C-alpha cells in the first residue's frame, strides 16, 4: 500500500500550495483587496466566533439521542456524497492538468492519489471549520473535532471512489447515470415540499402518512433510519465519545478505513480517462461561466434549432441591446424559470398560511415580493454579471453608458417583475379580493425590482469580483456581499423612511382637514414609490458612471 505520493506529483502539490498562497497575498496588495478582505474577515470571524462559544447551542440530549442525531447528519452527508459522485464521474482534473498529467509518465493510481491529496487539502479549510462548529456542540470538543475531520476525509475518498466506480458502470451499461442524480434531486425537492407544506399548513405532522412514518422512525432508536446509520457508527462513536478509552479505538478504525479507501480508490482497475475528460471539461466550463456569471446565466443555451426572439423592447440601439439580452434569457434560463415558478408556488403556499395564521392579509404579497425579488435576482443574473468577458465589445457599442446600463438590465427586470406579478396576482385570486396591500405591491414591484438589479450591477461594475464556490477570493467576495447588503439596507430604509414621514405629515394634515386615514396611507405609499423611483434614477446614473469608468484591462475580476 502506498499512501506516499510520487515525487513529481508531490512537488506539484507543494508548488501549487505555494502558488495559491502567493495569489492570496497578491490580492492583498491593492487597497480594494485589503478593504474587502478585512470586511470578509470581520464578517466571517464574528459568525464563526458566535457559533463557537461553548455551551451556546449545546442541548441536553441523552447519549443515544445524540448518537442518533449525529448518525442522521452523517447519513445525509454520505448520501449527498454519493449523489455528487453520480453527477461528476471519473477523476476530476483541472484544465491545466488534463493534457499535462494524462500525457505525463505517471501511472493512473499515482494520479488518483495526487488528486485525492489535492482535493483533501482544498477541503481541509472548510472541513476544519465544519469540524470546529460541530465540535462546539459535542460532549468532548477535541474528540468530536478529530472524529469529524476523519469522517470528512473519508467522504472525500468515498466521493472519488464512487465517481470512478459509477463511471465504469456507465461505460459498461452505456447509460447516463446523470438521470439518477436528477431523480434524487427531484425526490429530495418533493420531500422538502411535503415537509414544508405539512409544517406551514399547521396540521400535525404525524397526520401525513409519509411524514409520520419518517418522524416515528427518526425518533425510534430501533427504527429504519437508526439502522441505516449503523454502518456509520465508527465515525459517530468517535464524535460523541466522552472519554479517551471510548474514543481511541473508533478513531483508529476511522483512520484505517480512510487509508484503505484512499488506496482502494487509487487502485481501482478502471480506465477513467474518457469520463475524466468529459467531467473536467464540464466542470471547467461551469467554473468559467460562473466566473462570468453565476446562477441561471451560467447554464447552457438550449441545443437544437433556436426560435426567433421577438423585439419586445422596440428597434434602435437600445432595443437591440435589450433584444440580445432577451434572447440570452429565453435560450438559457428555461429550466431555471421553471424551477423558480415551483419555488414561488411554494412561497405562495407559505405566504397564504402565514398571512392566515397571523391574520395580517398584507403579509402574503409582501412576503412573495420580498423573497421572490431576492431569490429571482440572485438566480437569474442576466445582466453585466454575464458580460464580464465581453466588456470590450459592450464598451464599444455606439450608445451612452447610461443607455447601455438601462437596456442591459431591462429584460431581466421585466421578467422578474412579470413572474412576481403573476404570483402576487395568484395570491389575490386565491384570497378572492384585491386588497390595498396587494395593489401596493403590484405598483411598487417594477421600480423595486429594477432598483434591486441596478444596485447589484452598479456595485458589480465598481468592484467586478466574481464569486465562484471553491475558487480563490472568498474573503473579498464576502466583503463585497456585506457592503452590498449594507447599501441595500440604507436604500430600503431611506425609501421606507420617506414613506413614513409622508404618512405622518399626511395623517396630521388630513386629521386637521377631516380626511380619512386611507388618504394618509396612500400619500405615504405614493411617497415611497417616488423615493424608490428616485433611487432607481440615482442608481442608473451611478451605473452609467461605473460603466464609463470600467477598465477592461484592469477590472477582470
Amino acid at each position, binding site marked *: 500500500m502506498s499512501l506516499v505520493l510520487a*515525487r*513529481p506529483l508531490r*512537488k*506539484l502539490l507543494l*508548488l*501549487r500550495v505555494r*502558488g*495559491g498562497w*502567493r*495569489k492570496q497575498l497578491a490580492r492583498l496588495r491593492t487597497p480594494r483587496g485589503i478593504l474587502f478582505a478585512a470586511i470578509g474577515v470581520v464578517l466571517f470571524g464574528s459568525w464563526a466566533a458566535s457559533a463557537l462559544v461553548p455551551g451556546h447551542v449545546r442541548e441536553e440530549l441523552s447519549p443515544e439521542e445524540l448518537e442518533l442525531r449525529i448518525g442522521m447528519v452523517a447519513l445525509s452527508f454520505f448520501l449527498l456524497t454519493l449523489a455528487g459522485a453520480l453527477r461528476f464521474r471519473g477523476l476530476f482534473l483541472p*484544465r*491545466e492538468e*488534463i*493534457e*499535462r498529467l*494524462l*500525457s*505525463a*509518465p*505517471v*501511472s493512473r493510481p499515482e494520479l488518483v492519489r495526487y488528486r485525492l491529496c489535492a482535493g483533501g487539502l482544498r477541503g481541509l479549510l472548510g472541513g476544519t471549520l465544519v469540524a470546529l462548529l460541530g465540535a462546539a456542540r459535542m460532549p468532548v470538543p477535541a474528540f468530536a473535532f478529530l472524529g469529524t475531520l476523519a469522517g470528512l476525509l473519508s467522504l472525500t475518498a468515498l466521493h472519488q471512489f464512487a465517481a470512478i466506480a459509477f463511471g465504469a458502470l456507465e461505460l459498461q451499461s452505456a447509460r447516463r447515470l446523470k438521470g439518477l442524480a436528477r431523480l434524487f434531486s427531484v425526490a429530495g425537492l418533493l420531500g422538502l415540499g411535503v415537509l414544508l407544506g405539512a409544517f406551514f399548513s399547521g396540521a400535525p405532522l404525524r397526520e401525513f402518512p409519509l411524514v409520520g412514518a419518517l418522524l416515528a422512525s427518526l425518533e425510534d432508536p430501533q427504527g429504519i433510519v437508526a439502522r441505516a446509520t449503523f454502518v456509520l457508527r465508527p465515525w459517530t462513536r468517535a464524535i460523541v465519545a466522552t472519554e479517551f478509552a471510548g474514543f481511541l479505538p473508533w478513531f483508529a478504525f476511522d483512520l484505517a478505513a480512510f487509508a484503505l479507501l484512499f488506496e482502494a480508490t487509487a487502485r481501482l482497475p478502471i*480506465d477513467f*480517462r*474518457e469520463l475524466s*475528460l468529459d467531467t473536467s471539461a464540464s466542470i471547467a466550463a461551469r467554473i468559467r461561466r460562473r466566473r462570468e456569471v453565476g446562477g441561471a446565466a451560467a447554464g447552457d443555451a438550449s441545443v437544437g434549432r433556436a426560435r426567433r426572439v421577438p423585439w419586445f423592447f422596440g428597434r434602435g440601439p437600445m432595443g437591440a441591446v435589450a433584444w440580445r439580452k432577451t434572447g440570452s434569457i429565453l435560450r438559457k434560463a428555461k429550466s431555471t424559470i421553471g424551477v423558480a415558478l415551483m419555488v414561488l408556488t411554494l412561497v405562495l403556499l407559505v405566504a397564504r398560511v402565514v398571512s392566515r395564521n397571523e391574520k395580517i392579509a398584507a403579509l402574503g404579497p409582501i412576503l412573495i415580493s420580498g423573497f421572490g425579488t431576492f431569490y429571482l435576482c440572485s438566480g437569474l443574473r442576466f445582466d453585466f454579471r454575464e458580460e464580464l468577458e465581453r466588456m470590450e465589445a459592450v464598451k464599444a457599442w455606439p450608445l451612452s453608458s447610461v443607455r447601455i446600463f438601462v437596456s442591459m438590465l431591462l429584460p431581466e427586470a421585466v421578467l422578474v417583475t412579470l413572474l412576481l406579478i403573476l404570483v402576487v396576482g395568484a395570491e389575490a385570486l386565491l384570497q378572492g379580493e384585491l386588497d390595498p396591500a396587494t395593489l401596493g405591491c403590484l405598483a411598487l414591484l417594477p421600480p423595486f425590482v429594477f432598483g434591486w438589479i441596478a444596485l447589484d450591477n452598479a456595485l458589480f461594475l465598481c468592484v467586478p469580483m466574481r464569486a465562484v464556490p471553491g475558487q480563490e477570493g472568498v474573503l473579498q467576495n464576502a466583503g463585497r456581499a456585506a457592503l452590498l447588503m449594507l447599501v441595500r439596507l440604507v436604500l430600503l430604509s431611506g425609501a421606507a423612511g420617506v414613506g413614513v414621514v409622508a404618512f405622518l405629515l399626511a395623517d396630521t394634515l388630513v386629521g386637521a382637514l377631516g380626511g380619512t386615514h386611507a388618504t394618509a396611507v396612500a400619500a405615504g405609499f405614493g411617497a415611497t414609490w417616488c423615493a424608490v423611483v428616485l433611487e432607481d434614477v440615482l442608481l442608473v446614473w451611478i451605473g452609467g458612471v461605473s460603466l464609463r469608468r470600467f477598465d477592461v484591462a484592469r477590472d477582470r475580476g
Partner: protein
Amino acid sequence: MVLPERSQSEVRALRVAGLSKRYEGIQALSNLSFEVFAGEILGLVGPNGAGKTTALRTIAGVLPIQEGRVSIQGRDLVTEEVEAKRALTWVPDEPQPFDTLTVEEHLEFTAELYGVEDWRRRADELLARFELLEKRAALGGELSRGMRQKLAFACAWLPRPRLVLLDEPLSGLDPRGIRAARDAIRDLAAEKSAVVLSSHLLELIEALAQRILILDRGRAVFVGTLEEARASLAGAASGSSLEEIFFAVTGRGVSPADEGSTPGPA
C-alpha cells in the same frame, strides 16, 4: 525535402497500427497506421474535424486507445504506459499553464516529472531561446497567448524527448516567436528526436516536414513525401505545392491513384 534513409539501425520513435476511435456515433479515426523515425519530422494535415487532434491526444495517452496499437520507442502505450510516456512530450493547441506557478516553476515541475538532472542550465538555455528570460518569475495566469505557447515549448523541449507531438504550435506567436519555434523544431529533429507536427499552415509543414500524413474524416488519405504525393496522385502536376495537393486530396479535385488504400509508401 530529404527522405531519411530507412535502415536496420534507424530507430523507430513511433509506431501507430490500426488505430480507430469512435465518439458518440462518429468515427473520429479509422484504421490509422503510420511510423515516425528518430530525427524525422512528420507533418500532419487535414481539414477541420479530420481527426488530427484526436490522433495526437491518443498517441500522447490523453485519450484511451479503443482499437489498434501505439508504441513509442518500442514501448507499448497500453502495457508499458509510463515507460512509453517517458519518451514523449505533448504540446496541445491551447496550452494551459498553471495559473499560480511561475514560468520557472513550470520547468522545475517538468524536470521532476521526467527526471531531468541539472535542469537549471537547460532551462536557462530554453528560456533564452524562447525569449522567456524576463518572464521567468511571471505567473502562468499572467502570460499572453504567445507566451503560454513558448512556455509549453520550453517544457516540452526540457527533457530532450525522443518524440514530440505538436498541435498547431505557431498559434499566437509573433514573427520572432515563429522563427524561433521553427528553428527549435528543426534543431530538435537534428538532435534525433522525432516530431509529429500538426498544423493548418501548409507552408510550415512544407518547409519543415520530411513526410506528410493527410487525414480526412479519420482516414489517412496519404502518407509519404511531397514528391511521392505528386507522383501517386492522378492529376497532380510535378511542381504542385502541398496546398494544391491538400485541396486535391481533400476536396476530391484529384483522386488518389490507388483508391481504397492509403496512397504513398507509408
